[in-house]
């Protein structure tokens, strides 16, 4: 079947068309399904910077979208038409400038930082809701912030170091009962602490750590621990045996070989589970409320929960601002380390 020049030209045109249609369909589908996911986040962000008092406003949201949506579309066009990085960056810079101007013109006069005054004013929430409602004294937001930081950071530290040493031992050491241990761990992976909220509460109560920040910290350490151990074991499995063997023939003990040779190979895994662990600890709500009676300690989740409960009818702007303030660390961390997170694969699944 000898094709002539014309046949090839027809084929080339058809291929080009098909490719454009396919690309269009894919991007179209993903854009449509992604709008419901991203719009609420953008909304609460806009509210926090624009709401004056009283009700939820969305006029500002739609005006901002009117500027941003064309800009995003324009950038996609720029990215697809230009191949060189410099041209793309230039296009992006021009678009960002246009967006800035557009936003200043359309919503500039509505933007303000008034809703974020809770960061400086310790008694704001109390003032807003009036002193009459039940539920104890609201602390300054920074107290909850520090507590949340403490809970998230220390549980992450525990969880990651335990998962790392345990994952290494399971990956690299021959010991009696290794298979049994791994299989038990596999079963334990199934028992999410959510499922065991009640008996875990009883155990913490009997230990005597109720109403103490140590309670949630300890429980958070166990959440996802078997899962993290498997992830770390997977990372250690991937480190070539040769380098450890050569470290040992060079005179290192196994513990030294672990510290100096193997550990530096698995930083990607450690960073990834640290981010996941921190985000998990930062958002914790169920166990911080289950393991306290009354308001013995405040963290960000309970702070936001009760602010929303008490102030919602009075001042949406403040609630939105607290929400943005609360989720900012999680999202920033996630954005910076996204690349590390996508490297995670499931430990042990066939495939």
């Amino acid at each position, binding site marked *: 079947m000898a094709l002539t*020049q014309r*046949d090839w030209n027809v084929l080339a045109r058809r*291929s080009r068309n098909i490719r454009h249609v396919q690309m269009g369909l894919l991007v179209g589908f993903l854009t449509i399904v992604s709008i419901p996911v991203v719009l609420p986040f953008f909304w609460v962000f806009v509210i926090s910077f624009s709401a004056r008092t009283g009700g939820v406003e969305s006029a500002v949201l739609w005006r901002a979208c009117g500027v941003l949506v064309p800009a995003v579309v324009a950038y996609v066009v720029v990215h697809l038409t230009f191949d060189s990085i410099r041209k793309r960056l230039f296009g992006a810079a021009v678009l960002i400038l246009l967006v800035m101007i557009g936003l200043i013109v359309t919503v500039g006069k509505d933007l303000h930082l008034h809703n974020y005054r809770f960061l400086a004013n310790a008694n704001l929430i109390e003032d807003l809701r009036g002193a009459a409602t039940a539920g104890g004294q609201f602390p300054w937001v920074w107290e909850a912030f520090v507590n949340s930081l403490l809970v998230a950071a220390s549980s992450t530290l525990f969880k990651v170091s335990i998962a790392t040493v345990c994952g290494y031992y399971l990956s690299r050491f021959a010991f009696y009962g290794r298979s049994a241990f791994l299989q038990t761990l596999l079963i334990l992976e199934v028992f999410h602490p959510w499922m065991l909220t009640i008996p875990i509460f009883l155990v913490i109560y009997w230990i005597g750590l109720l109403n103490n920040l140590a309670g949630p910290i300890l429980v958070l350490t166990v959440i996802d621990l078997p899962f993290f151990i498997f992830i770390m074991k997977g990372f250690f499995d991937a480190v070539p045996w040769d380098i450890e063997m050569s470290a040992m023939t060079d005179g290192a003990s196994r513990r030294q070989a672990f510290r100096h040779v193997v550990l530096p190979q698995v930083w990607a895994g450690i960073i990834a589970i640290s981010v996941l662990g921190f985000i998990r600890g930062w958002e914790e709500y169920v166990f911080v409320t289950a393991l306290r009676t009354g308001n013995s300690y405040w963290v960000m989740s309970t702070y936001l929960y009760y602010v929303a409960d008490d102030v919602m009818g009075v001042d949406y702007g403040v609630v939105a601002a607290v929400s943005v303030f609360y989720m900012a660390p999680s999202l920033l961390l996630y954005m910076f380390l996204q690349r590390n997170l996508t490297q995670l694969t499931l430990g042990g699944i066939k495939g």
Partner: protein
Amino acid sequence: MASIELRHVSKHWGPTIAVDRMNLTLEDGEFVAILGPSGCGKSTTLFLLAGIYAPTEGDICFEGARINDVEPRDRNVGIVFQSYALYPNMTVLKNLLFPLRFKNTSNEDAHARAMEIAELVQIEDLLEREPSQLSGGQQQRVALARALIKKPNLLLLDEPLSNLDATLRLTMRSEIKRIQRELAVTTILVTHDQVEATTMADRIICMKDGQIEQVDTAENLYRRPDRIFVASFVGSPPINLVQGRIDKTMLVAGQRRLPVSGNTVSTNVTIGLRPELISTGEQGLPASIVNIEPMGREILYAAQSEIGLLRFLEATPQPRLALEEHVHLKADPGDVLFFDTGSGQRIEGVRLDAFS
């Protein structure tokens, strides 16, 4: 299909340039090898031809028509990958039938063709096996059969033999050559192994850093390499290269001055001389043996002479010379190649008058 042409084709991956402004024309039914060290862009060239990569600039033409945008499925090319890339979830037969699924071939025709091709590559007994149950050589045959079953206009082989052991490589080399001759399909073989390239291909494209160094027959690459890189990459053991300088009618190399003639220009040169073209005798360049490497049938000596270190081969099973022994090296002065050290280009028309 009469002609396949690359016109000024480049492929960039971000800042790195895999293929750099390449021009190439292939004749119908020809067996061409692309030879080069790893990372020189030879596999990229293959995938550009298959349509899996799109060129950053330049045109790929079949029959004179620009086909940059034509999908791989419409180009009718068959590829054999280094890893064989057999579909793990399909039996050998299903692997073979897969390409025909998209060609509107009737069921009987498809099976008939599968049998025919299986016979050609001698895998009739394996049709019901899963790829994971096959040895490397068998997988290789299946991959070849799958590439050939749709009667491709162009067969592309990406390092097809590099995962096989030495003896199997030998058989597959002649097998592939036989099959290619039987089907008369235009074939491009990508390899870093010069023996594979020289034994199988009609023409060899020698590549380095994304650029073509020389396109020629195996013999010409060996005898008249255009550039230093080709001279050093082709031939085993590698060619002797000695730095020197042409000074009017003299070649100055080391402490030695040798007379040259022809259209000489004073410049820095690299001279090349194949180890197999050097022998020892009563007269010639004085040297002393510094290393002896028995290579089975032959022995590779290294000798320090006044122009520099020279290796030479002797076809005796036992070493005849001893370490530190003084010898005289002989060679036909016409066999000495001159290269411009700066550009790497061979200098024609310069001749060594005497090698001593």
